[in-house]
């Protein structure tokens, strides 16, 4: 066994344990429990002791017994330091320790003697640490958004750290923020507008993009190469530089505050990437199929409808989902073009709500939950399609 490996192992595993325990403590604090200290020194010492003991005991004991033993020791020590805690706090600590002991079980004296063992230990724990940390940092704001929407302004101001929800209260009381934003702030209408605009954008974009992508993929014409490179360059151009001219022109044509105007802009901004993604897929369809169709005297319309479309359902659905998400999340153009509350999209409505400093934050968060949930559901459910779309085109943002 190498000393270097031993030190690395003991230190990094105890730091990992400390971070696990600390995250648990943060979550516990957020249930309104008073907890003021991470006890860095004590937990690190305990962690080092446990990891060294683990090496000493090795495989002399069954690993189940060993883990339970470690977990018990730690929980008792920790319970002694942090007194008067609800029992579920200790259960959580116990579970963390079981997990930790399972993870360090594979390290024994022989393992630490092997080549590069110190590096491998560091990498192993960094991976675990990374998974825990990234999940926490990413999910925490979403968790906060959801919880805040169920609280009241007064409760939030008294103790901003109390995220506990009282499930015993009346259903109507619990979902009050949601009832309010639907009743008072007309969110039902905004959901309809957002849905209409997004689905409309998907349909119009596909109607324009499929023929164009087919032409770029299959037919020979003058300016084809120029067109396919300019598609990508146009895609790079930022929305912010289009805003002023579009605003002036739309004002003069009376297209501002109209859902139709928004639909035109969204379609135009998603078209380049839709064409790019579709033409890539169309190229992969064997040409022989179309040649047979030409023999059968089908024109291009027939070819697209009867041959290309049925074969490219996966690509088309991935483009459709992806365009839907862009349109649903879009904010800049809806901010510029809509200033009449009757034609707001969801994003614009939430921004409008926040403009009034008096609006209680739980309403804002309830609105945010409503605008976020559909996208996340679609994303999780259709992830396979979307990820291929994301990598092919990458959502503009």
């Amino acid at each position, binding site marked *: 066994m190498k000393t270097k490996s031993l030190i690395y192992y003991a230190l990094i595993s105890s730091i990992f344990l400390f971070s696990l325990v600390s995250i648990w403590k943060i979550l516990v*604090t*957020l249930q309104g429990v008073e907890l003021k*200290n991470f006890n860095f020194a004590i937990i690190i010492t305990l962690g080092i002791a446990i990891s060294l003991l683990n090496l000493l005991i090795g495989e002399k004991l069954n690993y189940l017994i060993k883990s339970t033993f470690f977990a018990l020791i730690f929980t008792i020590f920790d319970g002694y330091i942090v007194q008067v805690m609800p029992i579920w706090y200790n259960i959580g600590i116990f579970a963390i320790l079981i997990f930790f002991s399972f993870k360090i079980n594979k390290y024994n004296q022989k393992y630490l003697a092997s*080549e*590069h063992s110190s590096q491998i230990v560091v990498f192993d724990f960094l*991976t675990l640490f990374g998974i825990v940390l*990234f*999940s926490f940092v*990413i999910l*925490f*704001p979403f968790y906060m*958004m959801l919880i805040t929407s169920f609280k009241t302004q007064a409760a939030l101001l008294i103790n*901003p*750290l109390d995220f506990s929800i009282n499930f015993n209260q009346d259903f109507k009381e619990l979902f009050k923020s949601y009832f309010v934003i639907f009743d008072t702030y007309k969110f039902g209408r905004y959901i309809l507008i957002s849905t209409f605009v997004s689905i409309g954008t998907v349909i119009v974009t596909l109607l*324009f993009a499929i*023929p*164009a992508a087919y*032409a770029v993929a299959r*037919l*020979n*014409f*003058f300016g084809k190469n120029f*067109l396919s490179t300019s598609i990508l360059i*146009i895609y*790079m*151009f*930022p*929305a*912010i*530089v*289009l*805003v*002023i*001219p*579009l*605003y*002036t022109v739309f*004002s*003069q044509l009376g297209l501002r505050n109209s859902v139709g105007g928004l639909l*035109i*802009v969204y379609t*135009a901004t998603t078209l380049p990437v839709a064409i790019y993604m579709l033409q890539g897929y169309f190229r992969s369809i064997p040409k022989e199929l179309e040649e047979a169709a030409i023999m059968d005297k089908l024109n291009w319309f027939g070819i697209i409808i009867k041959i290309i479309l049925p074969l490219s359902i996966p690509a088309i659905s991935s483009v459709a989902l992806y365009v839907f998400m862009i349109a649903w*999340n879009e*904010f800049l153009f809806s901010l*510029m073009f809509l200033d009449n509350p009757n034609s707001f999209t969801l*994003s614009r409505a*939430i921004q409008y709500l926040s403009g009034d400093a008096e609006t209680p934050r739980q309403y804002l*968060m309830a609105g*945010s*939950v409503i*605008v*976020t949930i559909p996208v*996340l559901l679609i*994303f*999780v459910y259709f992830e396979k399609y*979307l*990820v291929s779309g*994301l990598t092919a085109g*990458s959502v503009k*943002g």
Partner: protein
Amino acid sequence: MSDTLSKIEKRTAYILILPAVFLVFSIILFPIFANVWISFKEVGLKDIRIPEPRAKKIIKSIKDNPDQLKVIYKLRNSSLILEIRDVKFQDKLPKNIKPINLDERCRVKSNKIYCEFGNWEAKYKENFQILLKSSDGKQLNKKELKTIKPKLTGKSDNILLNTNFTLKNFKKVFFQNEFFDLLSTTFYYTFFGTIGSIVFGILTAQLVNQKFFGRTFMRSVLLFPYVGPVVALAYTWELLLDPYSGTLNNLLMNFQVIQEPLNLLGQKYLTINFFGFDLKLRLALTTVIIFEIWRYFPLAFLFILARLQAVPKELYEAAEVDGAGPLQKFINITLPQITAVISILFMIRFIWNFNKFEDIFLLTGGASGTRTLPINVYEQGFTISDIGMGSAVSIVIVALLLIFMFVYFKLIGKRADEN
């Protein structure tokens, strides 16, 4: 024969691409050129409204004379700055009604009144009256009269279409707009945001490329910030970071990490004492950059993960046989494999971060040292209401972007030649 076939093919191709090309041209390319035009003009937000002749119709009965009505049209020019030429007026009358003592600018033709009012200067106002009389002695119907709306037309100059140009906007952009401050903030934001998102992308991709329980779930979770709507996420962060009732500050104070709450989005500088040196950190800008990294590292993650999964396993196995540790494997195998992806990512993210508007706008509104060029476009155009100035800033952005693209393709082209 084949000649005509290729002609047909060409024609079909043009028919197929024309709708898309037309739409993209009118909504994306045309505005870019229009920006150039507008940026050389002195145009305010109020100037872009086209002046309209307007009339409000008021109907009054006359006391002594029940079979007569007085109609007052409150005429006005909607614009405060521009005149309207050749104003024409038209209103319809119900069948049994005839006007009496009609104004000499007007004439009646088959139940319609036509008037020519000539030119109206800016702010023009007039109360124009017509006396109406029933021609068959029946009671006059006020409501029916009221429902008919008069039509007015007129010609006016469109300030956007005349040919008065000025360099004033550009002078203002470069000399009165704290231009270099803007530029440096934009570059800080763009550069650190880009580098940060790529670094975290590499870390997470490396993470997910290993086998562990819950890996697919982890991959979905990592993409959440990227697919979530910016409005919802920005406001959640704003609540999270609030100095008084925000969760983060309260947590940090609860665990005694900090003594005083930090106004993470509202404070321009934070002075840190570092071994006796006072370091000034741009606090709000840093926070905004962290948000940006949080939101956009998933793109880098996805690209790099896709590349990592394509690296042949044999390379790592061979390295292991040669006795390489994890660090050596990462430096000698993984990194060279992903440099191409990273350079593309750098380009994409750099350009998009350079133009990022929503995130900063929603978090700080451009206050406390977070004003970047895109935020300035909005401020000039819509807060200060100077459309010409906003366009000029847009033009600067486009010019800078073209320079990046040029430099980037030069560099990439050079590298491709060397290989």
